[in-house]
């Protein structure tokens, strides 16, 4: 999915984000993390509702990296080769931050709409 235009300014074509992708990006929005860190973080932020199994996780990570939304940190920190093989650390790219923000905005708007409707119905 390394289409160059997918990193373009219009992220809306990818919205709504896949659930896995959304949670992985959210997990990375705080700190760079490695695989098991992401799993734990996603478990936390979903109150244990979503467990990412290894294949799903790394399949998604590769997709996200191909889209240019996340990147591996290992090459940048210059860890020795053997070390980097064992633990890849991922962090959000600016494009990833954009798409996450866009998704958060979309979800937030949707949530607001729902809340507005519900309250306006309950109050009178």
């Amino acid at each position, binding site marked *: *999915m390394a289409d160059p235009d997918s990193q373009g300014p219009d992220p809306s074509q990818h919205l709504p984000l896949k*659930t896995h992708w959304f949670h992985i990006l959210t997990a990375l929005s705080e700190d760079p993390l490695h*695989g098991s860190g992401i799993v734990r973080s996603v478990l936390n932020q979903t109150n244990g509702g979503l467990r990412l*199994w290894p*294949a799903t996780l790394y399949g998604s990570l590769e997709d996200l990296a191909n889209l240019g939304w996340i990147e591996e940190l290992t090459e940048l920190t210059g860890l020795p080769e053997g070390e980097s093989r064992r*633990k*890849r650390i991922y962090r959000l790219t600016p494009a990833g931050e954009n798409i996450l923000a866009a998704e958060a905005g979309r979800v937030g708007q949707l949530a607001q709409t729902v809340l507005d409707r519900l309250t306006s119905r309950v109050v009178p």
Partner: protein
Amino acid sequence: MTTPPGMRAYRALLRTLPPLFRTSYASEMEALFREVVRAQRRRGRMAWLAAWMRGAVDVLFLALRLRFRSRSGRRHGATGGGGLQSAVQDLHFSLRSLRRRPLFATVGVLTLSLAIGASTAMFSVVNGVLLKSLPYKEPGRLVAVWQTIPNRLGRAGVEGRLWDRARLTYSQYRDLSEDDRIYERLAAYRAGTTDIATLTGIGWPMELRAGAASASLLPLLGVRTVLGRWFLPEEEATGSGQGGAPVAVISHDLWEGPFGGTSDVIGRSVTLDDEPITIIGVLPQGFRVHWLSASFSGEGDPGNRDIWFPIGAPGWPAGHNAYSWEVIGRMALGVTLDEARRATHAVLSRHPDTRGDAGVYPRSREETRGLGSPLLLLLGATGLLLLIACGNIATLTAAELRGRRHELATRSAMGAGAWRIVRLLMTESLLLGLMGSAIGAVLAFGGTEVLVALAPPIPRLGEVGVDLRVLGFSTLLGVCAALIFGSGPSFAVSRGAVGSLSIGAVHATESRHRFSGAVLGIEIALTVVLLVAGGLLTRSLTRLLNVDPGFDAKGLATVEVRLPFSRYPLQDPELRAGFFQNAINQLEGIPGIGSVSGTSRLPFPGQTSNWSVRIPGREEWFSPLGYQVGPGYLETLGVPLLAGRALAKSDGPDASLAVVINETMARRYWPGESPVGHRLEWNGSTDPLTVVGVVGDMKRQALSADAEPAFFIPFAQHPDWDICFVARTRMDPPEAIPLMGEAVRSVDPELAVRNATTVAALVEDSASQERYRALLMNAFGILATILAAAGVIGVTARSVSLRTREMGIRMALGAQGSGLVKATIRDNLRIGLAGMAIGLLGASWASRLLSPFLFGIEASDLPTYATVILLIGVLSLSASYIPARRISRVDPVDVLRAE
């Protein structure tokens, strides 16, 4: 750190991923999975298994997605519609689709579940008996220690057989256990199938299966008593083999049964064989130690004993020079089997009791000696069954897909990617596999119980059960079978499906028809193999049961007692002879009973005592089988008298010692002359015996065995403690048995009566292994037949309905309906014949594996093959006729209108 099998399997699974992806992520995925699994294992095996399955599905889905994506050229948006939502959608769709085709779904699920149920049940038995390690601590270091005993002249042992697994004497065992460099611990025990202790004072007198063991046995096995304690070394006999303490440890079952399961049983004094014995401990549930000698002689031994005494306890002396102790050893760390054998030989060779070599074998292998190949053979049979089931899934799916070409082509035309379509089809297969596995697992639980209940008494049968490993195995088997055999065709179809609505369908149909034909042919071939195997074993069993045992077993009833040493001491043979005579008198008083007599041992199940005899003037000692028999015993059994006279009442204790010998003994020891009147030296008495008569041979222990030399001496002259009374009854033998028990007990109410049964049953039981094999093989053969028939019917029905259009057109052009029916049947018959030919070739090869288990027939037994050929012929004819008949009812007008 060693890799647990689960991780190894996961690693293997990762190989399904594309290589590029694998090199990047495999090690991390593995590490992550290890974490998950470790966390789940703490929550129990079920959670662990669930995690493993979930992880496996996770990898497989990714593998398919990645591989399919790379093949379909990385089209934009073809990320496969992953995610839970579409998976649930797929599931809904598949369920609906399966529900729309109930016949396909039912046949598919049933086929799979039957095969999985059968193979899982069989695997549980194999797993429990052969694969599971012994239920002791570190079973890998446990060995059985034997010695070989050549006969007195240094040649091979008894009657030409070398005893390569002779037991040790107590004194040999003591010598061996002094050296702790080779064996961390050694233990000796004796628990023969005839070792019985009679418990009195609690309700009816009860016969307990008893054993004696050294104090080291339980610590060696790493087993603890659940209550009280095991024997202390000082409670065991001293070096002389005497002087053990009057204490006993009882089994869990005995404790819960007659002793009520209360803790005050510890310290309780009971009467066993008229001796006061104190109970000091209770063994854990299911504790068993197999008396290996029993299974070597062909007897079954379930291994559990009701009560254990220390060696040398009253009634359990370790007789001097008695080769009666089986020895089990725990090798010290780092010692190899070979070193152990050499060191054991070195110690034993210095001992006066040693006559041959030492034998040291892994205990686990000894416990199941001779059981492996028959069980594996049956497991192999279920493997064939599974293959047939897979074939059915493949042909059924292929036939289904042919029928769904339109639907799939339409989906494809409406924009569903090839991956999407394959995923739909795979979800269906997966669903089929899961349902098949679930029902198969239920069948496996029932099936295992049936297999165990039917089984002859083989060691470790009590440890057989459907465990999680077995269940996981079966689930995986079912899902994989369904996925592979169900999806194979779907890949083929999905390629063709894109773009082709109906053009070119004829061509594809042709090749797929050939595929189904080939698979059905193989199924029929496999069925032939199983049916031939079942047929051979059945014919062999019939032959075996028709063997003349040398006596007339019909109408004979028997009860057995053992006289306790304490009340019938060695020095008072008159007491035993008196009991015998009184019991015979009582038995004869039963109305409706015919002739009555007794013997020390019946020919079936066939415990033996080999006695040494010598012909005066000759150097060689022989070891024929010896029996003490009452007057009229051989006549009661219906053994023909060939020469001389039978033993009579007049052969009493004061008369000269008389002996009747069998034909084989006469022929072997006095070739070419009549033995009547000759003398015989016997190590049981100082006076020589005089041969007074010759009788016909009787089979012993197994109907397939050759007759052995045997001799019969009057019970009154040498009374034994073991007595089997036999009666030829005029009433139904089972009715006579309780009356006989009462009659015997009226002479000595303290005795427990055992083995009250008919002699015919004892003879039949001797063929129980053969019966089990034949029964199972036939059951598998019948299952295979049903599955193969279902396959043929299913595929024919489907192809007939698909060819309705073709048939309609042909009929419109003037073809006869009956001719078309014939053509369809001819097609199937051709497949049937080809399958049969391959199957016969396979069977003639496979039956060579069977030949060690065959008796009285050749592996190339013609009637068996002929029957199978006939059966398969009829089967493939009728299985194709039923659906094919529909063709003749096709109305060409309807067909053309539908176009």
